[in-house]
C-alpha cells in the first residue's frame, strides 16, 4: 500500500501522545497514552475520517496532525517533512497550509473581534495582500460560506450555531490552506443546519482542492462524507478502509459492533443490536494484548497476551485483529437501510426540487439571523 510521497500529504509514524495526570492513587502521577503508535497516510485530495467512541483519542490525534500538540514519540510528516523539526519559514508555511475547524463554534471565536477581523487575521499573518485586497477577500469568503458580506461588521454572538461554524470555516479558508482538519465540525449542530454545513464543506473542498481530515463519532455523517475511514479504539487504529467496504463488510469485531449499534432511521429496519456489553476501559490502564479483548466476543487466550498489529487485509484495507480472517467468514454488522417507501421518495424529491430553487441562507430574514442566546449554548 505504499504510495509515492507526492500523493501522501500527511503521514504519521508510530505517533504516540502521552498525558500525565495526578489521578493515580495517593496523587501518584499516571500516564495516559491517548494516542498509541498510530501510523497512517492521508492522501492528497481525499476526505479521511477518524471515528471512535468518546475518549478514544480522536481529538488528540487531530491536534497532533496540525501541531497544536507536540508528539511524545513518533513523527508527523507533512509533504514528507517531519513537522516537529521545521525551520521558522517552514513552520509558517505549515500554519498556512494546515487549518483547524473546532467542534464548538461558540468558544472558538474571539467574542471581541468582528467577524471581518476574525477572517482577516490569518491573511495578515500568511499573505502579502493589501488592506483593501484583504477586505475584498473577507467579503468573498463570507459569500462563499453562504453568509453576507455585510456581516463582516458584526460580532460572533450575533450569529447562530450554524452561522458561527460557517464563520469558523471562512476563517480556516482565509490563509489559503491545503488541508482542513475538522474536529467534530458538525456535531454541535441541529440536523437541518448540519446538512447545510456538510454540503458547504463538500463544495469548498472541491472548489479549493482541499484535503479534508474529519473527526466524528456520527457514523452516518462519516459514511456520507468520507473516502477512507480509520476506526480508533483506546488510542489505536483498529481498522482502516475505504468507505463502502468498511460499511458493507466491517472486519474488526469493534467496527462490527459499532455498525450494529447504529439506530437506522427506518421502522422496518429495527435492528439496533446490543453486541457490546460493558464500557470502554479506562485509558489509564489499557487491557493487555488486544485492547479490545475484554469486550470482544471472539477473544481467545492469545488476544489477552499478544497485541495484534495493524496489517494489510487486501483491498486497500488494514485491520488489527489476530482472528480477522476467521471472523470475516461470517462477518456480521454490515449496515443495511431498508428502501424508503414510494410516498417518502416522492416527497423527498419534491422537497429537494422546491428547496433547491430557494437560496437557503439568504432566505433567512435579518431578524432570524440574530438568534437570541439558546440556553444551553451559553456555557
Amino acid at each position, binding site marked *: 500500500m505504499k504510495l509515492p510521497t507526492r500523493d501522501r500529504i500527511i503521514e504519521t509514524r508510530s505517533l504516540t501522545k502521552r498525558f500525565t495526570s495526578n489521578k493515580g492513587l495517593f496523587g501518584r502521577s499516571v500516564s495516559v497514552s491517548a494516542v498509541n503508535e498510530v501510523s497512517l497516510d492521508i492522501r492528497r485530495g481525499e476526505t479521511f475520517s477518524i471515528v471512535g467512541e468518546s475518549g478514544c483519542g480522536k481529538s488528540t490525534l487531530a491536534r497532533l496532525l496540525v501541531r497544536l500538540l507536540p508528539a511524545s514519540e513518533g513523527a508527523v510528516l507533512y509533504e514528507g517533512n517531519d513537522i516537529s523539526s521545521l525551520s521558522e519559514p517552514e513552520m509558517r508555511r505549515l500554519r498556512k497550509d494546515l487549518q483547524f475547524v473546532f467542534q464548538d463554534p461558540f468558544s472558538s471565536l474571539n467574542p471581541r473581534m468582528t467577524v471581518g477581523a476574525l477572517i482577516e487575521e490569518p491573511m495578515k499573518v500568511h499573505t502579502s495582500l493589501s488592506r483593501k485586497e484583504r477586505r475584498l477577500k473577507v467579503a468573498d469568503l463570507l459569500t462563499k460560506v453562504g453568509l453576507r458580506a455585510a456581516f463582516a461588521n458584526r460580532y460572533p454572538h450575533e450569529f447562530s450555531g450554524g452561522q458561527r461554524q460557517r464563520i469558523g470555516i471562512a476563517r480556516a479558508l482565509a490563509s489559503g490552506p491545503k488541508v482542513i482538519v475538522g474536529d467534530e465540525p458538525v456535531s454541535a449542530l441541529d440536523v437541518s443546519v448540519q*446538512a447545510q454545513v456538510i454540503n458547504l464543506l463538500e463544495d469548498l473542498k472541491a472548489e479549493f482542492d482541499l484535503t479534508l481530515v474529519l473527526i466524528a463519532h456520527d457514523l452516518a455523517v462519516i459514511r456520507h462524507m468520507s473516502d477512507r475511514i480509520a476506526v480508533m479504539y483506546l488510542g489505536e487504529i483498529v481498522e482502516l478502509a475505504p468507505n463502502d467496504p468498511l460499511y458493507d463488510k466491517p472486519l474488526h469485531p469493534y467496527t462490527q459492533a459499532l455498525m450494529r449499534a447504529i*439506530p437506522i432511521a427506518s*421502522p422496518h429496519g429495527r435492528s439496533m443490536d446490543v453486541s457490546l456489553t460493558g464500557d470502554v476501559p479506562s485509558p489509564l490502564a489499557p487491557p493487555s494484548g488486544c485492547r479490545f479483548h475484554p469486550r470482544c466476543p471472539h477473544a481467545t487466550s492469545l488476544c489477552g497476551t499478544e497485541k495484534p498489529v495493524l496489517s494489510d487485509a487486501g483491498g486497500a484495507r488494514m485491520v488489527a485483529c489476530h482472528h480477522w480472517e476467521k471472523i470475516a467468514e461470517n462477518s456480521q454488522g454490515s449496515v443495511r437501510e431498508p428502501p424508503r417507501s414510494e410516498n417518502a421518495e416522492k416527497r423527498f424529491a*419534491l422537497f429537494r426540487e422546491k428547496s433547491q*430553487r430557494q437560496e437557503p441562507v439568504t*432566505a*433567512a430574514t435579518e431578524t432570524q439571523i440574530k438568534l437570541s442566546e439558546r440556553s444551553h449554548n451559553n456555557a
Partner: protein
Amino acid sequence: MSKAIDLNATPVLSVENLALRFKGAPANIIDGISFAVRPGETLCIVGESGCGKSVTALSLMGLLPRSVAQIMSGTAMFGDRDLLELSQRAMADLRGNTISMIFQEPMTSLNPSYKIGDQIAEVVLRHKHVTRAEALQRALQMLDRVKIPAASSRLDDYPHELSGGMRQRVMIAMALANDPAVLIADEPTTALDVTIQAQIIDLIEELQKETGTALVMITHDLGVVAEIADRVCVMYAGHIVEDGPVESIFDDPQHPYTIGLMSSVPSVGPRSGRLATIGGMVPTIDHMPSGCRFTPRCPFAQANCKTSPPPLDELGPSHRAACHYAPLETAFPATVLQEAGS
C-alpha cells in the same frame, strides 16, 4: 415492527391543547399541543433544538414554576386528575412515584454527595410505606434490573465513580423504582456513545415490556425514533406539526418539516447525492411567525401560510399533519414544478 398496542385502551396520560408562555414573552413557547400515551406504548416527541421538547416535559412534571412559565390553556389528564391543576404538594407525591422522568444529563438529578444506593432507596421511602432496609433491598434489586454488574458492590458508590452509561442506568433504576405508570425520558441517550446508547435503549424497552409503563421519549434523533417508537409527534417551534404511528411517519411523511428533517439526515447506506437542507433556522420566540410557524423556511409556502395557522388534519389512520398543502404531490404536481423550474 412495533408491538401491539390496544389503540382503544384508555390513555394513561392525555394532554389536550397545552399552551405555555414564558413571563413577558410575546408568544406562546408551547402553542396548543395535544398527545396521549397508552399503557405499554412508546410515544416519541422529535424535533430540533429549542422547539420546546424539554419545556413540555418539565411543565408536565410540575418542574417549571408557574411564575416563570404561565399555562395559557390546556389539560393534562393523568387518570382522573389534571396535572396542570395539581398543587405543588400533590405533584410532588406523584413525581418519582406514578410518573417519573429521566433527564438528559444524569448528573443534574443525581446528588453528587450521596451514595447511589441511598439515593434510590430515598425515592422508594418517599412514596412507599417500607422500612429503610426494604428500600435498600429494592435499590439493589433495581440496580440488578438495570444490569449494573456486581450491583451489591455498587450500592455504596458515589455518582462520580460511575461512567456516563452507568449513571444513566442508575437514573433509570431510580425512575422505575416505584413502578411508574408513565415515564418521561428527555434525550436519555444523547450524551452517550452509540454502543452504550444501544445498551440503554435495549434496557428501557425490556423494562417497559415487563412493567407496561407508558413511555414518552424525547429525542432529536430519527434513528432512535425509528428504533423505539410506536407513535411519533413531530414538533416544530412549539407546535405539533405531524403525528401518527411510527410506520406512517416514516413511510408517508406529510408535513414539509418532517420531510425536510428526514431528507437532511445523512443515511448509513450508500451515498445518494447531496443532502437536502432546510434553509434558515428555528425561529426564536421574539420572531415567531404568525400563521404556520414553518412559513419562513418552507419551500412550499404560499401567501396564506403566513396568515392562517393550518389545523392538524387527519390524513390517514390516526395520522395527522398541520399543513395547508398536504399531501404535497396533489398541491404541487411534479410536472408543474419541472416546467416552472426550467
